[in-house]
C-alpha cells in the first residue's frame, strides 16, 4: 500500500467548538451537538449555510439532518458515519478531508455529542433480555454470559497479558493517570481542573476489574465537541491559523474483534494502531521524533503504553521505561494528553483530544508545548481505530 494521500497537506481543521464538559448537562444530546457545531463554526468564521458536509459516529444519536435543520444549513452533499465506538474519532476528520480533497464537499463539520454520564452509560452491565441474533450481538455471546460485560473488563484482560509479557506494573499504568491529571489541573475546561493526583492516590483507588483501579478508567462525561474541516486554501482566508491535516488513517488489524481480540498469536499489542501508525508516518513523511506532543486515546491507561510502542515512540515492551520520570508530562520529551485526556478533561469519545491538537498547533493550548510543529492524535483503542497528524501551516 502506498502512502500518498491527496488530502494530506491540502486540507485543514479551521474551527473547533465544544459545550461545557459536565456530569449532567440538563439538555438533550441533540442540543449539545447543535451547540458544539455552532460554536465550531463561529470559531472558524464560517456561516452554517456554507456547510455542505457532516460526519459523526454511527454510535451518535444525533442525525446529520437534525443538526442541519437546526442550524439552517440547507442542502448537504456529504454525510457519513463511522463505526466501532471511539475508534471513529479521528476517522471523522479523515473522511471529511477525503470529501474536501475530492470536491465532494467544501466545508464538513465533524461532531460527537452525548449524555454519557447522565443518560446511557457505556460502563453499565446488560440486562436479561434475549438479544437479536446477528453477528454484532453474537460476538458478545463469548463474553457476556460469563460476566465479561464492560469495556473496563475487556481491556483488563489485555492489561493482565501485557503485564505478563512486558513486566509493566499497575504503577506504570498509574503514571499515565498522574500525567493526565497534572495536565487537567491547569486546564479550566477540565472536569478535574485543580485536582492533580499522586501515584499513591492511583494505587489506593478501588478495584474496578483487576488489574484496573478506578483511576485507570476514564471519566463519564456529558457534552459535545465539533471540528470544522475545509481546504487549506480556504482555511488560510479564515481568522484562525489552519491546523493542516498532514496525515489521517483508519486501521483494523488481522483477526480483529471489537475490544476482545484475544485470539491472535500475540495478545500484548494493538496491531490495529500499528496499521494506523504506518500510514500516518508514511503519508506525512514524519517520524516519532518530529512530533512535539501526542494525544493518545486514554479510556483506560494500559493502552496508552501499547500505543507508544505501536506508534514507534519506543520499542515493544519498553513503554514502562519510556513513561518513567514524567517523560509524558509537560517538560518531558513527549508530553501526552496536554489537555488532561479523557481521564482528566472529559470523555468526549476522543473528539476533545483532536481539539487539543488543534490548539497546540495554533499555539493557544493552556499547557502549550513550545516550538510545536506537529501533533499526533489517536482514536479509541482495542477497536478498529484511526489517527491524525496535524501540523502548523508552513
Amino acid at each position, binding site marked *: 500500500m502506498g502512502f500518498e494521500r491527496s488530502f494530506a497537506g491540502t486540507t485543514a481543521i479551521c474551527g473547533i467548538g465544544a459545550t461545557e464538559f459536565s456530569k449532567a448537562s440538563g439538555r438533550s444530546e441533540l442540543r449539545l451537538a447543535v451547540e458544539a457545531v455552532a460554536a465550531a463554526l463561529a470559531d472558524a468564521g464560517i456561516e452554517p449555510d456554507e456547510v455542505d458536509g457532516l460526519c459523526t459516529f454511527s454510535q451518535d444519536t444525533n442525525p446529520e439532518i437534525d443538526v442541519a435543520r437546526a442550524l439552517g444549513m440547507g442542502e448537504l452533499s456529504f454525510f457519513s458515519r463511522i463505526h466501532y465506538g471511539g475508534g471513529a474519532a479521528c476517522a471523522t476528520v479523515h473522511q471529511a478531508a477525503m470529501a474536501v480533497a475530492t470536491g465532494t464537499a467544501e466545508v464538513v463539520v465533524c461532531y460527537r455529542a452525548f449524555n454519557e454520564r447522565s443518560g446511557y452509560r457505556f460502563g453499565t452491565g446488560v440486562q*436479561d433480555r434475549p438479544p437479536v441474533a446477528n453477528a454484532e450481538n453474537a460476538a458478545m*455471546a463469548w463474553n457476556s*454470559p460469563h460476566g465479561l460485560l464492560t469495556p473496563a473488563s475487556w481491556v483488563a*484482560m489485555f492489561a493482565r497479558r501485557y503485564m*505478563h509479557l512486558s513486566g509493566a506494573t499497575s504503577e506504570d499504568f498509574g503514571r499515565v493517570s498522574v500525567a493526565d491529571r497534572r495536565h487537567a489541573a491547569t486546564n479550566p475546561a477540565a472536569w478535574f481542573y485543580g485536582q492533580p493526583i499522586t501515584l499513591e492516590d492511583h494505587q489506593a483507588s478501588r478495584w474496578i476489574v483487576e488489574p484496573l483501579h478506578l483511576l485507570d478508567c476514564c471519566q463519564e462525561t456529558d457534552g459535545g465537541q465539533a471540528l470544522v474541516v475545509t481546504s487549506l486554501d480556504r482555511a488560510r482566508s479564515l481568522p484562525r491559523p489552519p491546523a493542516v491535516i498532514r496525515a489521517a488513517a483508519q486501521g483494523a488489524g488481522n*483477526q480483529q474483534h471489537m475490544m476482545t481480540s*484475544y*485470539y491472535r498469536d500475540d495478545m500484548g499489542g494493538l496491531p490495529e494502531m500499528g496499521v494506523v501508525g504506518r500510514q500516518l508516518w508514511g503519508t506525512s513523511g514524519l517520524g516519532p521524533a518530529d512530533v512535539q506532543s501526542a494525544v493518545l486515546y486514554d479510556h483506560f491507561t494500559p493502552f496508552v503504553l501499547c500505543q507508544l510502542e505501536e506508534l514507534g515512540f519506543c520499542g515493544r515492551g519498553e513503554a514502562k521505561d519510556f513513561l518513567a520520570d514524567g517523560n509524558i508530562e509537560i517538560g518531558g520529551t513527549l508530553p501526552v494528553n496536554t489537555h488532561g485526556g479523557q481521564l482528566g478533561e472529559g470523555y468526549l469519545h476522543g473528539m476533545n483530544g483532536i481539539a487539543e491538537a488543534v490548539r497546540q498547533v495554533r499555539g493557544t493550548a493552556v499547557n502549550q508545548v513550545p516550538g510545536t510543529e506537529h501533533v499526533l492524535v489517536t482514536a479509541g483503542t482495542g477497536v478498529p481505530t484511526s489517527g491524525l497528524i496535524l501540523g502548523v501551516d508552513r
Partner: protein
Amino acid sequence: MTDTLDTTPDAFQARLQAFEGRPVGPPTVAPDEVNQAMIRHWVEAMGDENPVYLDEEAARANGFPGVVAPATMLQAWVMRGLRASLEADRARAEGSTADPTAYDELFLLLDGAGFTSVVATNCDQDYRRPLVLGDRLTATAVIEAVSAQKQTGLGDGHFVTTRLDFTDAAGAEVATMRFRILRFKPKPVTAEAPPAGTDAPRPRRPRPALTEDIAFFFEGAKEGKLLIQRCASCGKLRHPPLPACPHCRSFDWDTVESTGRGTVFSFVVTHYPQVPGFDYPLPIAVVELEEGTRIVAGLTGIDVGAIEIGMAVEVELVAVDEDLTLPMFRPAGPAATGAR
C-alpha cells in the same frame, strides 16, 4: 380473601359481561350548538381547507343545506371540557366519586383483578347525516361489550367496547361511535418463570445471541461437550466460530470435542459494576485449550488470589440456569503446564 363473591375465571367473566348493555351514565347534552366559531378553530388546527365548513355558498354548491361541521368533529360537540375532566379524575383517584357510573364500577372490578393498565385500541364512527349549524347533540353511552380474557403483546386483558349514540334535538339518530380500549395486566419485567423449587426468581445471566453460525457451540454445551469448530476442508480449528475458514476460505465445517484441558492465558477479577446473576469478585479467564484455540470462560472452584497465567485448568460444563449451559474452568491436578 374477604370478598365473598365467586372469583373463578368463569364467574369473573360473568360479572364482566353483566355490564354489557348498561348505560355508562346519564346522557350528555352538548354544551353548545354546532357553531361556526368552533368549526373554524377545528379546521384551522387540522389544516383542513375544504370550503364547505366555512363558506355558505360553497356548501350549497356541493349539495349541502348550508355550512356543515367536519364529520370527525362528532365527539368534540359533547366533550365536557378540561376542568370537568380533571375534577372527575381527581374524584375517582380519591374514591370520592359522588355518583359512580357503570364505568367506575367496571374499572374498579378490573383494577381489583390486576387489569390496571389501559390503552385505547380503535374508534369507529358511522354518520347518518351531516351536522349543520344550530344542531344540538345529545350522546348516550352504553357499554356494548366486554371481551373474554385475551392474550396481547402488552399483557393479558379484556377489551371494553363503548357505543355512543348521537341524537339531534328532535331525538333522531345522527351518528354512532364505537370506542374500544384494552384493560390489561402489565407484563412483569422478566417474564420467565423461576426455576422450580426456588422462592424468588433467580436473576439470570445475559443470554447469548444465537446465530446459525454459533448456535452449535451452546447446543453442544447443553449436551456436556466443549466443541471447537473445524474446517472440513483444511482441518484447521477456529474459535470463535466463523462461517468460512480464514485459511482456505471453505464454507464447509464440522466440530471436534475438546479434551477440556488448557492453561490460563490471561485473566481478570471483576468487582464493578455488580450485575445480577453473578457472584463477585468474579474471576474470568482467556483459556488456551490443548487443541490450540482460546476461549473466554469463568473460573470456578478457585481462590481469586491464586490465579496465575499459565496455570493448568480443566473444563466443567455448568448449567447456569434451565436453558443455558456454559463451559467454565477449574484448576487441574498438580501436573500444571508452564507459562507460555
